[in-house]
């Protein structure tokens, strides 16, 4: 049981770390660009919110499978497939949770407005300097919300993980899959324990998000 818990937390942790790095430049571009077609990219990023997880999982299974052209460069270095592997699950989770990282970070960047960057420029800060010394610290609440949302969303994902991971013990068998399996096997007591654990976790996540929102709202006024 502990290894399942550890695997779940590891998946969520790695996904969160990868997404914070990936989503930052993407959110920055979406927040600051004036090109009209950025909304096309915005829509693509938001797609996993409305797409059935099984659809996403199906396409990911094909894309990361042994016959995918995307896998050709990896096959050259000896990796035949990423389907049914932990690394595959990380990629799937990153795609699945992308909108939950981009949305809060993009909003936080947009809320900064133009003025702090004009101030930074008149104080000799180059645009790159201002990104690190002004944009990132001012958008910090957005990053905290993004991290919490992505972590929680990855813990809670089921459809993508089932399609792409198959529930292999020690490799892709995470909590939500385990609960499904326990119920199938009529092991209600164990299912109760895990379900209860996730319920408490979900409540703690929502409570912390609301508290952060309350706090940043107060700071703005």
């Amino acid at each position: 049981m502990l290894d399942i818990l550890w695997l779940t937390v590891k998946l969520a942790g790695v996904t969160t770390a990868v997404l914070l790095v990936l989503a930052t430049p993407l959110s920055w571009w979406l927040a600051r660009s004036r090109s009209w077609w950025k909304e096309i990219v915005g829509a693509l990023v938001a797609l996993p919110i409305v797409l059935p997880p099984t659809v996403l999982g199906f396409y990911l299974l094909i894309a990361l499978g042994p016959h995918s052209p995307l896998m050709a460069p990896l096959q050259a270095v000896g990796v035949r497939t990423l389907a049914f592997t932990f690394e595959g699950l990380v990629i799937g989770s990153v795609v699945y949770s992308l909108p939950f990282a981009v949305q809060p970070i993009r909003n936080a960047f947009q809320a900064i407005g133009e003025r702090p960057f004009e101030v930074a420029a008149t104080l000799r800060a180059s645009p790159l300097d201002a990104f690190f010394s002004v944009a990132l610290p001012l958008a910090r609440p957005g990053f905290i919300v993004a991290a919490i949302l992505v972590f929680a969303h990855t813990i809670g994902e089921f459809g993508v993980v089932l399609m792409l991971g198959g529930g292999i013990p020690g490799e892709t068998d995470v909590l939500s899959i385990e609960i499904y399996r326990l119920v199938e096997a009529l092991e209600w007591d164990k299912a109760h324990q895990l379900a209860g654990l996730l319920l408490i976790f979900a409540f703690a996540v929502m409570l912390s998000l609301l508290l952060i929102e309350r706090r940043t709202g107060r700071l703005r006024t």
Partner: protein
Amino acid sequence: MTLPADTIEASFRGRLGEFSLEIDLSIPAAGVTVLFGPSGCGKTTLLRCLAGLERLPGRLIVGGEVWQDASHFLAPHRRPIGFVFQEASLLAHLSVRRNLLFGRHRIKAAAPIGFDQIVTLLSLEPLLDRGVGKLSGGERQRVAIGRALLAQPRLLLMDEPLASLDGQRKSEVLPYLEALHEELAIPVIYVTHDGVEAARLGDRMIPMRDGRAGHAVDLCAGLATASQELLAQRLAERGAEGLVAELQAAGADQLLAGLAVAALQAGLPPVGKA
């Protein structure tokens, strides 16, 4: 004739949205030059063009250095300026001290304007370790002025720095601006629509209207205390007799504000001539 090294040569022509600017100016890079005019006349836009925060087609040469011409545009962070915005615009994630040092930390050359000097000049000592959220409006603007000065500007641009303050706060900050003028030899371009501020702080005034600038008007030193007769005479020389008669009947405060308006009218080329 002033040497090119001591002047700011600015010419801009172009539209920003609904607004069009047509400027040809040569300003001595010394003392306080007031850009004066009603709101919407383009004075803030001109100031932002000088800072490089807006980009209009044109040419800008400051102290012999080309900041902008047809092929070249110096990015704002490479211009040795200080800019004070109408709202203090302090960086909310930094303390007062770190706001003050933001620009200074990014200067590699020698820094003749010292931290202690500015802290004393603007009475910032008790504020240094506070967060910027806990300051009054006047305190915030003083920090913003100090922050701009500590970036070691060769040219200080101020965009109505007192306009967002109420009367009491205004009179709290105004003496600091005068002290600045006396203690530091940095040329200042000061945007305002307030005649009293213009008269108290300015060495010369450039009236602006409808995106165009008139001829510079010298404001004699100690204008605020000069006699009404002298002021009236100066106005009359510029062909504002009608206004002079009105102003002589009014009090001193109104006279100062009126002087600015009169200069605006007298200094501008006739509309429609261009």
